[in-house]
């Protein structure tokens, strides 16, 4: 059996769905963060698979930019979560339902 484009795409869809499940079912803000990273990895994998199978490096460039944006997002997001924990003593998203108190 030859590993085709569809193998990678199905794997990407599976990873993305697992990430969505994490965002929808978990309460801990950090795990939701990790799930978002899973979704980004799934999209990156699909990009790279298409880049390989169409012989176009442009897809890999976009993965590069997605990784850069993900790094920025994690830095700011985790800073927000740490500040939130300092103020509220919790990272449970059910308890954090007001923007300002």
């Amino acid at each position, binding site marked *: 059996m030859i*590993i085709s*484009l*569809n*193998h*990678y795409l199905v*794997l990407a*869809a*599976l*990873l993305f*769905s*697992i*990430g*969505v*499940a994490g965002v*929808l*079912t*978990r*309460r*801990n*803000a*950090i*795990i939701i*963060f*990790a*799930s978002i*990273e*899973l979704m980004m*990895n799934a999209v*990156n*994998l699909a990009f*790279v*698979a298409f*880049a*390989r*199978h*169409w*012989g176009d*490096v442009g897809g*890999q*460039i976009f993965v*590069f*930019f997605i*990784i*850069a*944006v*993900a*790094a*920025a*997002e*994690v*830095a*700011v997001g*985790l*800073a927000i*979560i*740490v*500040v939130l*924990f300092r103020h509220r003593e919790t*990272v*449970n998203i059910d308890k954090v339902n007001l923007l300002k108190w």
Partner: protein
Amino acid sequence: MDLLHLLNQGLFWFFVVMTVVSAIVVVFSQRVIYSAFALLFTFFGVAALYLFLAADFLAASQVLIYVGGILTLIIFGVFLTAKIYTMDIPQQTHQRYLALLPVVAMLGLLTYGLFTADWKTVTPAAEPTTKDLGQLLLTTYLVPFEVASVLLLAALIGAVRLARPMQEEDRD
């Protein structure tokens, strides 16, 4: 040649299973620290799959940035926020099974779309793409490249400003 092909296949499926299983552990583990460490295996699995797709530079970047940077930050976040030894608090939302319904529906729809689409792939011979990436980044994609660096600088300053200990004038 045939043995090499078999080895290739075996490695591919090994990394696929590793990625999926560790992703499931990330999402469904009851302990936050297990989730954070399972993320390590997911990132490594995806990096290995990049190698299968002849994206050697991206595989290296994935290991450096995701494992070395993002995962470290997430583990720091876990240590700074979660009360690790009191894990009897519920980790799942109330309607978790209902929430899985749209997830399964989306996965089904995506898979259906993937198998019915005609992708018209050409699949050229695998070659290292680092040289092409470098040339594209400094010609066609030069402006997004610079914008990305400005974004990273802004994120750096913003994160430091947010996480800094509170000063007197910030208290209200």
